[in-house]
């Protein structure tokens, strides 16, 4: 609709506007008369302020002129023949429109067109003096100023069906007086009611129908092809007032804010190169651009839309956010969306939506998630991802807000939503053993440094042991250095809610099963010993976790650490090689052997004998 806003007062007497902010346009025309003439037709500007839209157009090209050579002439002093003539000039200087959006569906408006009619008739005059008598050609000019008023209303049944009703020439104002002779040439302004239906029966297919009580009809069909940042549309407008019939095809290309339209007017009726005076005085003309004396024409319309207040193309339907957020689960946020929104495309074209979010106290800047293309008028689910800094730490729960944004082609977000969010303390844990891995990784630097320091004291033992026993020996030493002597300390809150980071466990010299398992796993992993958690879910009231670690020994080398084949567990690594894994009950803090023994006992009993692994009540969870 923006493409022809400059024709607003002709095609849109109610000044119904889809200009979001400001539009300027220029219209050139070329008329294929016997001599092709091109000129500037009009310059227009439209501005929307709040619910009001204003339109102003200067139209130097909207004029029509007639010239009548009279059969009368003056013989001049030099015997030359001076012919007399009559000139009729009709000009629409400018037009203005105003409309007000009463509600989302109803709007009303009016347009004013200012015409100047100038009729000049040559007459024979004479100048009589004492010494001479001279004939002169005198010009008698009469003018009439006309304000043509059109008023009407528009109702949007749906975004793709609009009814427009308007009346014109009921309130016209005139200024000037004309002689009887010139009254016959006056611009005709018959009272007229206009009913128009603008519809989009199929996506991007436009069909309009218009009827006027002065017996004129128009039918317009158009199709728009949308691309990423541009669109191309083809329209054909058939018009007829039963004496003048024609078609106006047009092709419109829009890229960003610039819109260019090439259109033509092709009349089916026979074009009258000369006008009959009888016909003109009896019928007159009511339209300066389209009348039975008009020639076929081509027009170029350039429009520029300035959207300082941008068009909203997409909008949130809802956003589903978790009740709380565990900030230590950093890598999980990268892989899994922390929130999912449903977004609707309000426009008539596919829109690429750029989602972004920012969680207060967590993010210092917007975090962008992958773009999602939403089809016209369609709704799509859009995942939101976030990033929590490794350095983030908070010892207490906090209430925060998550801000969600969806941005289309605009510079600013089309829509935004804010949701409250509980940010758990950094030690908070959701009870899922698989999520303990985040606590393991959090203190890697600390664990690595500490482990290396502890192992350095046992250098002699490493020098004398078989290389294949290196993992086993390191695990044994670290257990003795870290776990032995620790206290078993239950969580201060609910048992499943809090997990200590390894350095905290070292500091407080104790912890519960998950604290101790996390701490030991962190030390092991930091020096390259693979670990896994064993999650015992047999009792819903109190679940238990202990550790498995990879000795990196092959089954054939099992004899180096035990003759009891029930004290180890064989697992395949990523290369398909079988390795011996040993269970460790970290709450058994007396020594490594007892912890191993206790671990074997629990693992054999619940995971193997009671078929816990098969039933799923016991689960082995890799740290990596």
């Amino acid at each position, binding site marked *: 609709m923006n493409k022809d806003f400059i024709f607003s007062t002709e095609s849109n007497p109610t000044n119904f506007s889809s200009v979001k902010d400001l539009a*300027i346009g220029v219209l050139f025309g070329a008329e294929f008369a016997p001599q092709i003439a091109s000129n500037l037709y009009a310059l227009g500007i439209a501005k929307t302020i709040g619910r009001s839209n204003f339109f102003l157009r200067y139209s130097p090209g909207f004029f029509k002129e007639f010239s009548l050579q009279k059969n009368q002439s003056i013989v001049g002093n030099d015997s030359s023949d001076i012919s007399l003539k009559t000139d009729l000039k009709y000009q629409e200087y400018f037009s203005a429109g105003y409309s007000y959006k009463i509600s989302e569906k109803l709007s009303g408006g009016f347009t004013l067109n200012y015409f100047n009619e100038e009729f000049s008739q040559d007459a024979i005059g004479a100048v009589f003096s004492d010494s*001479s008598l001279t004939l002169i050609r005198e010009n008698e000019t009469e003018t009439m100023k006309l304000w043509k008023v059109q008023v009407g209303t528009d109702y949007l049944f749906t975004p793709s069906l609009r009814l427009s009703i308007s009346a014109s020439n009921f309130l016209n104002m005139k200024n000037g007086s004309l002689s009887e002779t010139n009254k016959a040439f006056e611009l005709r302004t018959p009272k007229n009611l206009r009913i128009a239906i603008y519809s989009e029966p199929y996506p991007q297919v436009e069909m309009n129908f218009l009827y006027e009580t002065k017996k004129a009809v128009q039918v317009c069909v158009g199709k728009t092809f949308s691309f990423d940042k541009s669109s191309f549309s083809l329209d054909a407008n058939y018009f007829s007032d039963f004496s003048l019939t024609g078609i106006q095809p047009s092709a419109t290309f829009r890229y960003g804010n610039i819109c260019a339209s090439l259109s033509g007017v092709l009349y089916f009726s026979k074009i009258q190169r000369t*006008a009959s005076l009888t016909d003109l005085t009896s019928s007159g003309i009511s339209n300066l651009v389209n009348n039975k004396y008009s020639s076929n024409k081509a027009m170029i319309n350039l429009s520029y839309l300035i959207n300082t207040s941008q068009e909203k193309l997409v909008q949130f339907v809802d956003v589903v956010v978790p009740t709380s957020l565990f900030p230590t689960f950093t890598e999980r946020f990268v892989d899994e969306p922390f929130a999912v929104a449903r977004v609707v495309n309000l426009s008539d074209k596919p829109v690429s939506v750029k989602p972004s979010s920012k969680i207060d106290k967590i993010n210092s800047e917007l975090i962008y998630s992958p773009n999602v293309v939403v089809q016209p008028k369609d709704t799509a689910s859009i995942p939101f991802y976030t990033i929590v800094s490794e350095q983030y730490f908070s010892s207490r729960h906090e209430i925060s807000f998550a801000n969600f944004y969806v941005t289309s082609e605009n510079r600013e977000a089309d829509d935004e939503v804010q949701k409250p969010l509980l940010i758990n303390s950094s030690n908070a844990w959701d009870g899922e053993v698989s999520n303990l891995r985040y606590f393991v990784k959090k203190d890697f630097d600390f664990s690595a440094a500490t482990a290396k320091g502890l192992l350095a004291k046992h250098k002699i033992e490493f020098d004398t042991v078989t290389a294949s026993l290196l993992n086993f020996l390191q695990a044994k030493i670290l257990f003795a250095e870290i776990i032995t002597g620790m206290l078993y300390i239950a969580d201060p809150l609910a048992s499943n809610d809090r997990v200590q980071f390894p350095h905290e466990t070292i500091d407080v010299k104790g912890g519960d099963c998950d604290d101790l398992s996390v701490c030991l796993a962190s030390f092991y992993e930091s020096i390259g010993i693979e670990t896994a958690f064993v999650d015992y879910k047999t009792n819903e009231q109190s679940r238990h976790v202990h550790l498995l670690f990879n000795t990196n020994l092959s089954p054939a080398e099992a004899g180096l650490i035990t003759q009891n084949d029930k004290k180890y567990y064989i697992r395949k690594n990523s290369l398909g090689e079988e390795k011996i894994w040993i269970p460790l009950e970290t709450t058994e803090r007396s020594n490594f052997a007892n912890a191993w023994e206790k671990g074997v006992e629990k693992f054999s009993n619940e995971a193997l004998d009671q078929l816990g692994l098969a039933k799923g009540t016991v689960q082995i969870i890799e740290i990596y």
Partner: protein
Amino acid sequence: MQNVKQINYSMKKYFRHSILLLLTAYFFGCGKPGPTELVNDIPNDEAPLQIEVLAKNPDDALYKGAYDSTGLLNQMPQAETFLFISKNVVSEKFLSIEYNVAQVLFFDRDKPFHLPDGKDFGFLMKRVIPPKINSVRTKEVNHSIQHGRGPSVKDTVLGPKYMLSRTGNFGDSLFLTYNTQVKFEFRKEMMSPPIEFTVKMPEQIIGKVTVTQNSNGEKILLLEWNKGTNDSVEIIIGGKIKNEKTATAFFKLHVNDNGQVKISPKLMKAIPKDRFDRLVFSFVRKAITRRVEQSLEFFTVIQNTHSIIIDYP
């Protein structure tokens, strides 16, 4: 700060585009379609008309004396011989007077005559054997003109001319009848063979002058006459000078012989009422011919006129 920079950049971009649009409008906006030609197909809307000034200097005696209701004016034709025959009716209020005149002028092409202001007037006349009109011998009289203004008015005799005239029942035996032939006879020398030919008097013209008003309430003069078979008629508009018997011819209108013409108010208003208390409208239906007889070129005008004198409306 970044936002302010972005806005400034955007505004500059919009401004550039706007300037580009306006420049494009300026350079391509030239040459507008011409007017559509109107063809006057309204019957009797406006009679074809050509108008010329006769009395370029109305105060000059040359023009005052030239219009003597015969329609004979001082502008002489470019021919060796001028034969002029006119049957005239002059009407004023309820009175009409008829008079006929015929005169023949032989120009001496070796003797041009210039007015005192240096303008060419014509040639002096030469004396010949008096010709006959309808077998009646013409009388030789002096052809004189007046020219100059005020106290410097001069009479100049251009030479002899040969004429017959009859007013009412008085004067020469010049009887002219509408639509009949008038015979002309002339001998260059006594013993030379005669030059004889006839010219036909046109059909009668009867004029009528009516004062009406246009839609703007201005007075216009409607001049009507009986339609004839000629292509055109001439209407001479003159004014009677107060306290003088002579009339001055102002304008000559050439109009189609269709019986009617309107005189625009502007034209009438131009004639000063304080100097001319009566207007003269002479309807002239004439036939003009050129012929060469015995190496002598004749320019012949035979006409009938109806002059109507009215008070200045």
